């Protein structure tokens, strides 16, 4: 890489075990290097984000994170600086602060670029979509929340802002149906704009960020332990995954590993989280196909798991599982016994319920060929988690970038032998990307998770520390690292840059699986009918809070 791009690259360095940082000389080279990373290095754009580094180095920093696919555990971070010599504070609005858009080559970059424009006031040159994203109407132009001069508690006037224009589909008989942000059920808010021809959906546009709370900015104001509590509350049902990713980022930045017991405990709790959420999603799918009996049974199982959560961690949502440098939960013999017996019994019941659902043709019929995500779409949008796996894109952070104790486990039982591997590949090829495929993937994952919990308990040392004690002393100001985890929705990535004081952050970037997967729904519903939308939405199980931050 250096040979080919030596005139364009300033330096390459290796960090935190598996991050390769490439600093570009000029921002104009971003598109070329991104294409090189994707096409030649066979990696996928995982996230891109900006940080305001005008304080330490007189520039905004843009980072493009690519994950190497195909069993090699490393991340390529392309870094470019956008000079802003005017310095702090009171930086004037300036259109010259721009960077080249890559949204045409990387459809998944479009949302990130709009986010950067809203939050930092850097303009993506040549981007196809110039509408605001995070900040809605009544937000004045020229105020950028993630810039350093902006204080998190600022009261911003409710004036000005730009009108939001939805895509208009025109033609004879085409109607528009606006839905939300307040929906009919007990769910989070978001706006959907359907264009329909008769009953068929010909276009769907989602508009989100109604529950934007300013998580990233808040992270810059809190100490490390408080950010941990915040990370649990990005999306309550992903508390373990998000806090694990965050803790790991800090642990990597400090160059420490959490004690073995903590690593195994993280696996146990993360898989418990996956199970109760998948149960909830399967129950919701059963409701949305109009089969209340099935959803009632599955909800009983979910409630059982939530009661188990409470017994293990003191919170029905598993809040309090993680600590910076370890875990806050001790899995003693009594808890282990409860986990094992509850799981054993619930798994048995789960299989009964699932076989009932599978034998119910009215359920299966509704799921089959509904909300199909084509494999090409899954790849282009860089989908993650169940949304990718249902379309046969074989991705799983637990296996591709092992963290916690996953390297000693087998998240994917199919990788045992060459024969299993082939079988697995065939199965992946056959996945159709419809609601039924997602149903089956979730069912399989519930069973796998239970097996993993068993293994993790088996491997868990009986005694030993739960937290590394000297993490904070080892954190260098301005060091940074990437943390990641696989939630029940897919990969969640947390980036931390340590602040001037080692017990603070100067940048906290969160990219949950929902942010990546939301665009999939706009594709999945095409040609389906409006009454199937709730089912498609549920089968994808996307989080609004996790997306909106």
């Amino acid at each position, binding site marked *: 890489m250096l040979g080919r791009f030596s005139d364009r690259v300033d330096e390459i360095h290796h960090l935190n075990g598996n991050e390769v940082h490439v600093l570009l000389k000029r921002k104009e080279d971003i598109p070329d290097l991104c294409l090189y990373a994707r096409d030649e290095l066979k990696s996928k754009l995982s996230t891109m984000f900006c940080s305001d580094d005008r304080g330490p180095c007189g520039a905004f920093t843009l980072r493009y994170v690519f994950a190497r696919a195909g069993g090699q555990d490393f991340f390529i971070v392309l870094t470019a600086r956008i000079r802003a010599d005017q310095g702090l504070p009171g930086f004037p609005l300036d259109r010259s602060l721009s960077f080249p858009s890559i949204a045409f080559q990387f459809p998944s970059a479009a949302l990130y670029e709009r986010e950067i424009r809203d939050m930092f006031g850097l303009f993506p040159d040549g981007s196809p979509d110039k509408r605001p994203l995070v900040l809605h109407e009544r937000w004045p132009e020229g105020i950028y929340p993630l810039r350093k001069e902006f204080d998190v*508690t600022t009261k911003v006037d*409710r004036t000005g802002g730009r009108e939001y224009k939805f895509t208009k589909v025109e033609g004879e008989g085409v109607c528009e149906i606006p839905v939300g942000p307040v929906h009919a059920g*007990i769910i989070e808010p978001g706006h959907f704009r359907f264009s329909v021809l008769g009953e068929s959906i010909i276009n769907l546009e989602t508009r989100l960020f*109604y529950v*934007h709370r300013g998580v990233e900015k808040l992270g810059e104001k809190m100490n490390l332990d408080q950010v941990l509590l*915040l990370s649990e509350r990005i999306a309550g049902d992903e508390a373990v995954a998000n806090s694990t990713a965050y803790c790991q980022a800090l642990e990597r930045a400090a160059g420490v590993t959490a004690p073995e017991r903590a690593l195994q405990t993280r696996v146990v709790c993360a898989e418990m989280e996956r199970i109760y959420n998948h149960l909830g999603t399967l129950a919701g799918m059963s409701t949305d196909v109009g089969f209340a009996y099935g959803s009632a049974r599955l909800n009983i199982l979910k409630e*059982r798991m939530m009661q188990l959560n*409470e017994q293990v961690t003191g919170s029905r949502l598993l*809040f309090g599982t993680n600590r910076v440098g370890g875990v806050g939960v001790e899995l003693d013999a009594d808890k282990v016994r*409860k986990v094992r017996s509850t799981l054993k019994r619930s798994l048995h019941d789960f299989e009964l319920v699932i076989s009932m659902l599978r034998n119910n043709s009215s359920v299966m019929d509704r799921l089959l060929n509904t909300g199909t995500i084509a494999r090409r779409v899954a790849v282009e949008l860089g989908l993650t988690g169940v949304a990718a796996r249902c379309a046969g894109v074989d991705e799983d952070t637990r296996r591709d970038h092992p963290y916690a104790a996953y390297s000693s486990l087998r998240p994917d039982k199919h990788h045992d032998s060459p024969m299993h591997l082939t079988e697995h590949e065939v199965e992946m090829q056959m996945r159709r990307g419809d609601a039924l495929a997602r149903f089956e993937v979730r069912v399989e994952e519930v069973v796998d998770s239970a097996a993993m919990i068993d293994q993790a308990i088996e491997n868990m040392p009986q005694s030993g520390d739960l937290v590394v004690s000297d993490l904070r002393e080892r954190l260098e100001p301005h060091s940074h690292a990437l943390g990641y985890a696989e939630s029940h929705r897919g990969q969640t990535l947390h980036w931390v840059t340590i602040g001037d004081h080692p017990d603070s952050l100067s940048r906290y970037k969160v990219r949950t699986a929902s942010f990546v997967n939301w665009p999939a729904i706009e594709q999945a519903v095409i040609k389906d009918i409006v009454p199937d939308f709730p089912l498609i939405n549920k089968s994808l199980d996307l989080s609004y809070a996790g997306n909106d931050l």
Partner: protein
Amino acid sequence: MTRTGKAKSEKATVISGASIERSPRSIMGSRVETDRNLLDHIRSSQGYRGNVRLLEEESDLASLGLERYKRAVEMCAPKAIATIDAARLGVSLDKGKCILCGRCQEVAPDLFKIENGFVPPTREKRDLVESLGGRTASEGVKKSYEETGKELKEKISKMFGRSLAVREVDAGSCNGCEIEITALNNPIYDIERFGIHFVASPRHADVLLVTGVGSRNMEVALRRTYEATPNPKVVVAVGACACSGGIFGETYATNAGVDNVVPVDVYVPGCPPRPEAILQGLLSAVDRIK
């Protein structure tokens, strides 16, 4: 409903869910775990973090070590702990802000105690604040779900002719509170048997259950939902976020509680409040309507 001998014998073991492990019922049967008798005893488990208390006996902070108290104030992410009277070292604890993380107990166990009851919902926000030397520190509620439900059912049938319509609005929550409200509808909590129905439109609603910080981007939608709800209406703020902003507090994107957007009648603290607490909040809401 008559109680069978078996259910009675389960009573002793139900705490912390032990009976659920032992219950021999099949998932496919019709009675399963929805059997009401079980519900007399759903209580939080031993380690549940439901309430934080200021320990009253030790009112002299100086003797406790001011340092530890200060640590607790620093640690508390939502800034629920405050000094109200510097001279007398008076301490106050705002349960509407508390996210029940347990950090205060860790650094100052002689001053704070986490318990497994839940914080009682209140009608006034100031009643959620307790202080050393002031109002008596309140104990967490341990009333069972079933008892609350029965009381509620009677009131609902008297006042509303059997059914109370509830509309849930998420105004910037993390979805944790939604999970607990959803749990009320599962066959175990089965809130409908008390005459409470979750409805799809605010126009059908008597009560609005509002969760979340009151995010800036939801202000308009929340106000419109409130206006669309016919009078008399009651608004219940569910969760630390809705009561006070919780861990998010006041930012450029939040409003530090939904009462800054619409009038609130009942506050249900907790992060998230457990289903029993939300039911208790609905009971207070019904009382409010009279």
